[in-house]
Structure formats: C-alpha cells, structure tokens
C-alpha cells in the first residue's frame, strides 16, 4: 500500500504532465481540467501517505552496477516535504486556472509545474542519495524552465539561466558528496550513511559536511548565493508561490536537516549553518525593507524566513526547523498567490504604483493580512508557533549573540510587513482601479491556504510524533500540540519577541517622526538594494568568462597552417614533458 502511494505521489503528477502535453494547446479547458484534477488526486495521495510513514524503504528498485538501489523511504521528514509539494502544488495549479487563462503555451506550463511537483515529492521520499540528486536536479531544471517561461522576455531568460547555474554550482557539493559517501560507505542509502558516518575519515566528513552545506545554501537562496531568487520573480506568480516560496527552496533546509545527525559533530559545521541562517535572515529582511517590487520584497522575505530555518538546524532544533518549514510554505504561498491576484488586477508589480486596494480588493486584502499575521509571527497564526519555537530553542541552545540577531530579524520582519501591507492596501490609490478582486479559482486556493494558516500548527503534535518514530538518528521528542502551545506561550522568549514585533510595527507607524534616521540609513539602503555587491561579483565572473572565451575564439584562425601548428606544438610539448619527466 505504501509503495503504491509513493508511486502515486510521484507518478501521478508526472503522468499528468504527459497528459497535459498530449492534450495540446488547442484545448485549453481540457488542459486546465486535467491538470487540476490530477494534481488534486496527487495531493490526496500525499496526504494519505502520512498514515504510512516508515523508516524503512517501502520500494526498492535495484539499478545494477554503480547506480545502487533506488529506494523510497517515506519517513516523516520526507513525507512532510512531499505533502507540502503536492498540496501547495495542487492549490497553485487551481490558482493557475484563472491566472494562466488565455496563455498560448499552457501545455508546457502545466507539464513543467506537474513535473516539478512529482520531482519535489520524490526528492523528499527518496532514500538513495543518487535518486535524491536525480530529483534535486529535476527540480532545478523545472525551476529554470518556469522562471524563463516567458522566453520572449530576455530578463526572464537571464533570470532562469542564472537560477539554474547557481543552484547547479551548489549542487556540485551534493554530487561529490553523494559520490564520496557511496565510495566510503559502499551504498547510496542515506540510512546506511547516517549509521556509519562516524567511521568515515575525519577530513572526508568535513568535505561532505561543507559540500552539502554549499548545495543547501544555493538551493535555499541563502547568503551569499541568494542572488538568483529575487531575479526568479520573473516567473508566473503561482510558480513563485509554489517553487520559490513553498517547496524547492526548502530543499536546502531539508538537506541540512536530513544530514544533521551525521555532521553535528564536525567542528564549525553547526556554527556555519547558524551563521548563514542568521545573516540571511537579517539581510533578507533588510532587503525586503527597501524593495519596491512586491514580488521581490516577498522573495527577500523568503530568504529571511529560510534563514530562520537554517538557524534552527544550526542550534540543533530539527523539529522546529521543519515545523517552520511547514508554516512558511503555507503562509508564504498565500502571500505570493495574493500578489498573483493583485498584480494582474492592477497591472504592475511596483508597490509605489499600488495603494488603497483595501477598499477595492477586500477579499484579497483580508487573506493577505492573514498571511502577514503569520509572517510577522502573531498569534494564533501558524507562523507564530513555529517562529517562537525556533527563537526559544535558539535562546536555550544557541549563543546569545545569534539569538539577539534573530530577534532583530523579528523586528525587521514586522517593519517590512507593515510597510508592505500599507503600501499595497492603505493610503491613496496611485494607479488604475483594479479590474477584479480575485477570480473564482483564485479565491478557492486563497481560502484554502488561509484556513491552513490557522490550522496547520495543530499538526505540530502529530508531526513531532511521526518524526520521533521514523527518524532514528535525529533524536526528536514527541510532544503534544497543546503541550507545545502552552510551552511556547509561557516561554519568556515569546514575550520578548512579541515586544519586538510591536516595536517593529511601532517604528512603521512612527516613521514620519523618525524620518531623520531613515535619511541616515539611505546609503546603506542603496547598497542593500544593489544586492550587497554579490551581484557585481556575479557580473565580474560572467564578464571574465566572456572575455576568456572571446580570446580563445581567436585561436581558431581557420587557417590550415595554424591548425597544423596545433599538431606539431602538441607533439613537441608532450615530448618535452616526457623529457623532463623521465
């Protein structure tokens, strides 16, 4: 049964992708129908899989020779990822019915989205490192293809390729890591590696730990490999919601969480994870504060929130990180989909051109505020519980300076969320009157996610229980939901952070009197707006490569005599080498 469910969870979206492609762009209605029905079915099968979690492979396919055995292990960590992928995925697909209406290349769109959903689920459930890398790369590919979905727009194409290349660069860490594990452990199985991690030579383990961290940083858009995520906002908004907020970017967090038990004792590793998380949380929040583009602001906010999850793993709170991952997937998808409703309605992504939408788009306003509550971390939204849990763990197990940094992040979050809500929904209207307040299918998925914001935290108990049962290496303790809620509400950390949140919102309200400080921060803001110099670094590398390539093109003179020189030159070079060497 579990095996069938696993196959359905991964296979249904893939079959759906094929069906949508075969349906052809001439029949858009059928395409919408096929895509949404199959993705809903896949979502259901993923949820049902929650009842079949296990720490043993439920499906093994021997691949022969060097490819090992492809196993699927539906443990809590993996199934959580699969459930998020398939459920948020089906909501994004439903949202797309209205969002993508009239697009010419619907087949390609749905096929890629569903191909992605299946791969993301597979990434979570796979128990073999090769299989995991396999899915890891497919998600990267789908992300690229969807970011540059509008291939006529050179900006979108550039953004897509940039995203692909940066995540692939990080992926080399995972690739080499997987190969090394196979070579030392003799198997690609993750469980085998976690069992034998301590027997590996020390320097190999260090290499693995930091290789995996590099892969995770690139995938989760953490500083300094974050520059692709804001650019990725060229993608259709449901894709941003699905891939660049709710699922694929979580893969990095998932990776560090998955291998936490193995690398925990590598000196400096947990600190590195923690520092990466903290810096990303702070810089992401700062950048969100100055961004003018609604989607980019949300993207920076994603970087910041993923930073919280990294921080959680860094202090050893694997459960807290996964709990926040779940909450974040729901509320950030909600926020992005709201943006997806707002942007076509007003015809711009620039928040300065918006304003006053509270009255003209009341429904979207309501759900956006619900999402904001969760993002800021106010009770009783899911973000409140998960973020407070992280902060509490940080206070208990992490260094004080890091805790203070994260607390600062909480304040900044409150500040930028207030700014965002205000710029979009309050004040004077700066642009055209919106043409709608969320179409029917948009409202369906927004409603579902809003309900999720208030309810998913109730799953904390179940989740911790499942994780305790199926993750033998992570040492997660089962704890009841209400017990956890009580603990969080009574913890001093919570009250401190609520105070900070209030302070953050207060600063926004008092922004007029505080204008002097704002002017003082302007140069800083400019630097932040330019991506903190990471963008220049990227450009430098690209230009260097281009110049090198242009110089090398000159060597292909097309003249026969120079071609012969290549032969004679290599001949003398090799003989000379032999002469020196022998």
């Amino acid at each position, binding site marked *: 049964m579990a095996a069938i469910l696993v196959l359905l969870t991964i296979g249904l979206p893939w079959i759906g992708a094929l069906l949508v492609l075969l349906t052809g762009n001439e029949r858009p209605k059928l395409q919408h129908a096929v895509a949404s029905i199959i993705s809903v079915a896949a979502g259901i099968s993923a949820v049902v899989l929650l009842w079949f979690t296990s720490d043993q492979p439920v499906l093994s396919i021997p691949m022969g020779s060097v490819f090992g055995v492809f196993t699927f292990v539906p443990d809590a960590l993996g199934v959580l990822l699969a459930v998020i992928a398939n459920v948020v995925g089906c909501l994004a697909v439903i949202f797309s019915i209205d969002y993508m209406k009239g697009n010419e290349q619907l087949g390609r769109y749905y096929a890629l989205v569903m191909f992605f959903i299946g791969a993301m689920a597979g990434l979570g459930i796979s128990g073999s490192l090769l299989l995991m890398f396999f899915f890891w790369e497919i998600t990267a590919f789908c992300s690229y293809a969807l970011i540059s979905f509008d291939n006529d727009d050179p900006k979108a194409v550039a953004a897509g390729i940039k995203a692909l290349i940066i995540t692939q660069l990080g992926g080399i860490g995972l690739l080499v890591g997987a190969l090394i594990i196979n070579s030392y452990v003799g198997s690609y199985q993750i469980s085998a590696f976690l069992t034998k991690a301590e027997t590996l030579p020390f320097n190999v383990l260090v290499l693995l730990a930091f290789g995996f961290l590099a892969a995770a940083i690139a995938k989760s858009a953490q500083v300094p490999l974050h520059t692709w995520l804001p650019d990725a906002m060229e993608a259709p908004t449901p894709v941003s919601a699905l891939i660049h907020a709710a699922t694929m970017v979580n893969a990095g967090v998932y990776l560090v969480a998955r291998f936490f038990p193995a690398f925990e004792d590598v000196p400096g590793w947990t600190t590195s994870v923690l520092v990466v998380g903290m810096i990303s949380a702070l810089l992401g929040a700062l950048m969100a504060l100055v961004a003018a583009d609604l989607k980019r602001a949300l993207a920076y906010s994603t970087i910041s929130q993923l930073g919280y999850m990294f921080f959680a793993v860094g202090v050893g709170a694997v459960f807290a990180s996964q709990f926040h991952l779940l909450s974040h997937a729901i509320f950030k998808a909600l926020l992005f989909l709201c943006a997806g409703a707002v942007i076509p309605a007003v015809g711009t992504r620039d928040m300065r051109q918006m304003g006053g939408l509270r009255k003209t788009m009341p429904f979207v306003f309501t759900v956006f505020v619900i999402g904001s509550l969760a993002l800021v971390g106010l009770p009783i939204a899911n973000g409140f519980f998960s973020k407070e849990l992280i902060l509490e763990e940080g206070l208990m197990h992490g260094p004080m300076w890091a805790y203070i940094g994260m607390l600062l992040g909480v304040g900044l979050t409150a500040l930028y969320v207030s700014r965002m809500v205000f710029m979009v929904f309050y004040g004077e209207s700066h642009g055209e009157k919106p043409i709608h307040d969320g179409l029917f299918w948009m409202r369906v998925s927004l409603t579902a996610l809003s309900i999720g914001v208030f309810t998913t935290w109730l799953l904390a108990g179940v989740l911790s229980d499942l994780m305790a049962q199926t993750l033998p290496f992570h040492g997660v303790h089962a704890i009841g939901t209400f017990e956890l809620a009580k603990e969080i509400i009574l913890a001093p950390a919570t009250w401190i952070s609520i105070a900070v949140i209030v302070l953050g919102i207060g600063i926004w309200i008092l922004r007029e009197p505080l204008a002097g400080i704002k002017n003082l921060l302007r140069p800083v803001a400019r630097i932040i707006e330019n991506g903190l110099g990471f963008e220049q670094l990227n450009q430098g590398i690209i230009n260097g490569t281009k110049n090198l390539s242009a110089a090398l093109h000159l060597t292909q003179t097309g003249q026969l005599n120079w071609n*012969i020189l290549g032969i*004679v030159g290599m*001949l003398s070079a090799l*003989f000379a080498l*032999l*002469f020196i060497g022998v």
Partner: protein
Amino acid sequence: MPTIDTLEWAMLETLIYGILVGAAIFSAIQSLRADSLLRSAIWLAGVSVLLSIVFYLLGAYQVAVIELSVGAGLVTVLFVFAISVAGDEGIGERSLVPKPLAWGLVIFSGLLLIYFILPIKAPLSTISKTSLTAVFWEDRGLDLLVQIVLIYSGVLGLVGILAEAKAPLQQSMVDEVAAERERALQEMEQTVVPEVDSPI
C-alpha cells in the same frame, strides 16, 4: 690489389647510406623551397628515387620497385596532371605561421625525437624464412582486403569530388580560360606583326 676489409666496408656502407639519406632530405627541402609546383613535384620524385635506392640497400627490393614506380612514377604524373588542371600559381607570399616559430618547433621536436629513438638496438639477423609473396598475400591478406575497400572508397571519393560542377562557378573557369587565350593571342599578334613587316 688491396682488399677492402670488413671494417672499411662498413664505413663505406655507412657513408653511402649517409649520402643517400642526406640527399633525400636535401631533396625534400628543395621540394618545399621550390617556387613552382612543378619543380616541387619533381623534387618529391627525387626523394622517392633516392629512398627506393635506400630500400634496395636495406633489402626491401619489392618496396624499392613499388616506391620507384608508384612513388616516383605514378604520383608524380598525378601531381603534374593536377598542377596542369589547377594551375601553377606560385604563392610566394609570406607564410602565415612565422617562420622562426615553425623552425623552432620542428627542430625542437626533431631533436627530442632523436633523443628518444636513437640509438637503436643492434640489428638482429633473424629474418623469417617465408617469402614476401607469402607474407603479403597470405599472412597479411586482410590488409590487402581492407586496401581494396580503401581504393574503392578512394575512387568513389575522387569521382564524387570531381563530378561535373554546377554551371555558375564553372563559368568563371571558362571565362578565365577564354581570357587567358585572348591574352595569349594578343601577345602572339604583337610578336608576329613585326615579322610580317620585315623586308624578307
């Protein structure tokens, strides 16, 4: 009469080889230095002739014959034919690769090759007893079969490449030939006309 003892004979032999091989290299160099293609082809034939003598001295009589007939004979004829068709345009311009660089590389790799290859082991005297005919036709018969394939594809390639060209480009050749003839005729007229006027 003084008899030539073995040592002197060996020295003489070496001297003969030296002269022949040296001449072959000289001929090759002349071939590459020659301004006209025809001369270059003839120097190449010279290399062939000299080498076939070397082959004969080395005991490879059959190869010597074939080198003489194919290398010096057939190939030269083919070259002369090709040159007559393609025209002997002397390209005396500057070489594309700087000559010192070419010199340097060639000498450098040549010296290294000498270092690696020379000196060789003393020659063995155990020449297998079968005849060349047996070796060529039987032992290495497969080489011959592949060679037939090679000749077949070579002929097909030749036919393919030289098959009648399409009109427009050939036209230019025709024009060129016509112009050439025109010019020659004019030259002839210029030289012939005074003769007519001569008192005789």
